[in-house]
């Protein structure tokens, strides 16, 4: 069974469209570099929770092939189960044939009714794909649909539009400040090594002996170890809930990550989130198993500051400053 933990997508704001089947059936999905499976709701899910979403109907696709393999998608309020099937998936005009994907069938928790996307398209490595399902980008590569075995992501901070995922190339207009390449430390998630401490205002606040980081478009904030979060909140003058005076933004320092010998600053304009006159820090605690060591998740707060190239051909991440 495949398991997706949807509560982790509570904060995501960026969505795109794909179609599945022949003729194509449209879905809004989250492009998630922190997972590897593709799934969408199906017509077999008849609950009110599913009624607010587009649902895939296999009987209306001439290219669909079913399987008996099961799928489980765990939501915060329960789980949705389904089956795996194969069909043509169209992403940005690319037709990926025989793509395996999950068709969610049974009733999830009621809150799924409000979920702003229908499904998730995972862009991480096949090694973490549930049920051994081949990820979409692996099929794009094996079917020679992309000229380079990489994709890149730009997330715009302010505009409702302008953000994109680019399959098979790099948009040079977003790399005028140069690209720094960082080798992956594991071919699972897009995992890289932070080789020095994380600093705030020049002070080391965490990761003093090196640690791991995952670049994840499916996580909105900067997820940091519990121990580091208290240091960061204290240093930045926030309360324990991460709330801070909006007037303080101009005087706050950069948070700096060191990757492959290079500094990658994130300014307060990026890590302070303003909403309805209140300001909070865009950090959240992540409590990982001890054996996993110190793990950071560089989510959208980080990605909005850098054009990110996910290079499967060379197993590396490229970062180009946008400012």
């Amino acid at each position: 069974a495949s398991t997706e933990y949807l509560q982790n997508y509570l904060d995501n704001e960026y969505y795109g469209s794909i179609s599945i089947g022949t003729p194509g059936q449209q879905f809004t999905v989250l492009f998630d570099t922190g997972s590897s499976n593709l799934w969408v709701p199906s017509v077999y899910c008849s609950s009110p929770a599913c009624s607010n979403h587009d649902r895939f109907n296999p009987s209306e696709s001439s290219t669909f092939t079913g399987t008996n393999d099961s799928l489980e998608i765990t939501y915060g309020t329960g789980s949705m189960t389904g089956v795996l099937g194969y069909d043509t998936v169209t992403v940005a005009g690319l037709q990926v044939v025989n793509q395996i994907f999950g068709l969610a069938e049974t009733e999830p928790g009621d809150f799924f009714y409000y979920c702003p996307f229908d499904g998730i398209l995972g862009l991480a490595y096949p090694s973490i794909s549930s049920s051994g399902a081949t990820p979409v980008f692996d099929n794009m590569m094996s079917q020679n649909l992309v000229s380079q075995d990489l994709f890149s992501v730009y997330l715009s901070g302010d505009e409702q539009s302008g953000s994109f995922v680019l399959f098979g190339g790099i948009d040079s207009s977003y790399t005028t400040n140069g690209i720094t390449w960082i080798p992956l430390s594991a071919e699972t998630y897009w995992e890289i090594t932070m080789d020095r401490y994380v600093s705030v205002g020049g002070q080391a606040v965490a990761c003093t002996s090196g640690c791991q980081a995952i670049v994840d478009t499916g996580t909105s904030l900067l997820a940091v170890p519990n121990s580091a979060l208290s240091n960061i909140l204290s240093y930045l003058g926030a309360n324990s809930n991460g709330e801070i005076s909006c007037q303080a933004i101009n005087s706050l320092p950069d948070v700096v990550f060191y990757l492959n010998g290079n500094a990658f600053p994130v300014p307060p304009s990026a890590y302070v989130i303003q909403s309805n006159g209140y300001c909070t820090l865009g950090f959240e605690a992540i409590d990982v198993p001890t054996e996993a060591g110190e793990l950071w998740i560089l989510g959208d707060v980080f990605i909005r500051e850098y054009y990110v190239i996910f290079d499967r051909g060379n197993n590396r991440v490229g970062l180009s400053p946008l400012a």
Partner: protein
Amino acid sequence: AVHRVPLRKGKSLRQILKERGLLESYLQQHPYNPAAKYFPSF
């Protein structure tokens, strides 16, 4: 062979639940742990 998928920035599920007064009860019933995505058994 370069293909661009435009992404639109919209409301998050958290924002939607908050506007409908459902966020607090949801989070009370289902404490949020970002690690669950990377360590499901944890």
